[in-house]
């Protein structure tokens, strides 16, 4: 454990993922699901990881929790949580971290809750396991947790089963389970994708509110740029297993540097924009498809779909470099500010 009194550690990130590679061996070749991704999350920060299906965002989060079966997965690089490399831990040691210091909320609240156990029992499970509470204490704490996530009549609900709850309530229960042990890092993998917009609004408000009260760092995985704009501090954009851009949420939306990020933003209509003068009649398309991850890509991963591709892009992979203070992009032609480090 690092010494918290050490002044240098104030700037040490809570979690740092360094050159993470996750390869899956499949019958028809190696699938490079994540290929050299690095990022860091500071305490109390919300980092969003954005990308489309197959970009490796969920695999990255599963790797942090070491939930991928190895083999077929092969992990390389380092995942340092409070200075400790999670990739070097045994399953037993990992179990002490999961649900305790790092917890997770999945997309499907129905399939991630156990249908034959009461909600209270499921919230209490982590507390009894990690904090050694008695059954009684755990139930009392479960009621507190349900109150915290805004479920009415918590004393009654704590004895109910998941099927008795609506989708939004189930997701609140998932959040209660995740926060029960006051984690330092909460991984939320598409937490609102399966919910209706009015319920999504409730859950996003809840997450924001809880973050300021509990102080956990959040790693939010999503494909919804609207959700990113509302809750994230910093954003990592992933494409085909690599990080192509990283910036603060303001910089990213104000001046996206990577053509893929720009493409994504053009492809999403903005509510209210259709009535503005000069509103585009057509959405911007990103032509083509994500390349197969089973073949080695030598050049830029986005070369096959990029509107301003050149020969250089096809032969040489661009380095991820600062284009403005705190703004990284992997593109040979991304505009670069004079002040960039």
């Amino acid at each position, binding site marked *: 454990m690092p010494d918290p009194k050490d002044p240098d550690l104030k700037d040490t990130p809570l979690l740092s993922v360094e050159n993470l590679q996750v390869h899956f061996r499949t019958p028809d070749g190696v699938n490079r699901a994540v290929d050299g991704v690095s990022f860091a999350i500071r305490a109390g920060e919300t980092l969003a990881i954005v990308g489309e299906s197959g970009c490796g965002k969920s695999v990255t989060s599963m790797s942090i929790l070491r939930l991928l079966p190895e083999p077929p997965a092969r992990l390389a690089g380092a995942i340092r949580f409070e200075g400790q490399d999670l990739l070097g831990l045994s399953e037993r040691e990992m179990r002490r971290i999961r649900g305790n210091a790092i917890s997770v909320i999945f997309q499907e609240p129905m399939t991630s809750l156990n249908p034959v156990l009461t909600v209270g029992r499921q919230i209490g499970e982590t507390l009894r396991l990690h904090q050694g509470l008695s059954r009684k204490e755990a139930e009392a704490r479960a009621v507190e947790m349900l109150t915290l996530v805004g479920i009415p009549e918590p004393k009654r609900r704590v004895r109910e089963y998941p099927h008795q709850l609506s989708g939004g309530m189930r997701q609140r229960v998932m959040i209660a389970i995740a926060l029960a042990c006051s984690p330092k890092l909460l991984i939320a993998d598409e937490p609102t994708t399966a919910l209706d917009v*009015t319920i999504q609004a*409730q859950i996003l408000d809840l997450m924001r509110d809880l973050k300021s009260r509990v102080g956990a760092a959040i790693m939010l995985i999503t494909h919804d740029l609207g959700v990113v704009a*509302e809750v994230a501090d910093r954003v990592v954009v992933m494409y085909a297993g690599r990080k192509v851009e990283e910036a603060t949420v303001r910089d990213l939306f104000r001046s996206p540097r990577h053509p893929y990020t720009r493409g994504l933003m053009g*492809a999403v209509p*903005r*509510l*209210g924009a259709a009535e503005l003068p000069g509103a585009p009649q*057509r959405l911007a398309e990103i032509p083509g498809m994500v390349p197969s991850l089973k073949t080695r890509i030598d050049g830029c991963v986005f070369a096959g779909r990029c509107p301003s591709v050149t020969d250089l892009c096809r032969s040489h992979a661009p380095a991820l470099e600062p284009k403005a203070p705190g703004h990284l992009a992997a593109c040979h032609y991304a505009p670069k500010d004079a002040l960039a480090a």
Partner: protein
Amino acid sequence: MTTPLLAVNDLRKHFRLGGGLMGRGTRSLKAVDGVSFTLEKGETLSLVGESGCGKSTVARSLMRLFPPTSGQVVLGDTRIDDLSAGALRPLRRRIQMVFQDPFSSLNPRMRVRDILAEPIRNFGLAKNRADLESRLAALMERVGLPREALSRFPHEFSGGQRQRIGIARALAAEPDLIICDEAVSALDVSVKAQIVNLLQDLQKELDLALLFISHDLAIVEHMTHRVAVMYLGKIVEIGPRRQIFLAPRHPYTQALLSAVPVPEPGAGRTRIVLRGDVPSPINPPSGCRFHTRCPHAFDRCRIEEPLLDPVGGGHFAACHLDGAALPAQAA
């Protein structure tokens, strides 16, 4: 006024629930409870609302995937809701559907050629073999797929490509109306844009009417002409796009629009967060069905059901509040 392509009058679909003595349950789930709208040739009408509001049940009733409980569906000048299966068959050609999940809506054991040829053969559209071939080739070109793909199976395609096949299958019958039930919801952002553009191009080229069912309000605003907002089996507001999005009258529409996250950090909008969940359609609330969650509800809302009243310019809303008294919701 000319007859609309499709007119739906007071459509109801109640699902009888099991239980009760002798299996004669008296309870029913009122999935669609009195819905009326019209659709013109070449027009897009979007049905929006949250899960369980009955938008998919409307679509399925129009397709006669099950018979409606009551109400009328008039296609052109023919009433189709009470036609026998045989009499309906030739008319089915005119309404086609594109489904949400491109992975489960295509038969995995059929080649693309057979998937597309089936409606052409069923409705006897091709004069001969050569005509069939040229129709297949034209369909593939229309949806932007290579002609060689005809001999492949659905699993060989990506999600976006499969949705193109689904659209080609709908087009094969030369319909007047295509019902898109969450047809772009399962697709990735960049692919979604491709399919939305394709649907808009096809509508212009073929003068198609689209009934676009979606919960994605930004996409709806981008591509629709008119919008109908549904809540618990009823239309609470219907009108031209501009009026629904810029000056929504119903508090539910206002809340729905304000809940959509906008891709603009620090946009600083005031969001109307609705309390609680949608009530059960088995026992819908009395009076206005939205009163349990409405921030403006007063006594009358609990007792008397508001009617869909005109508020000007083809815009209707079912709310007891005087429209002008509502705080205008800036988009």
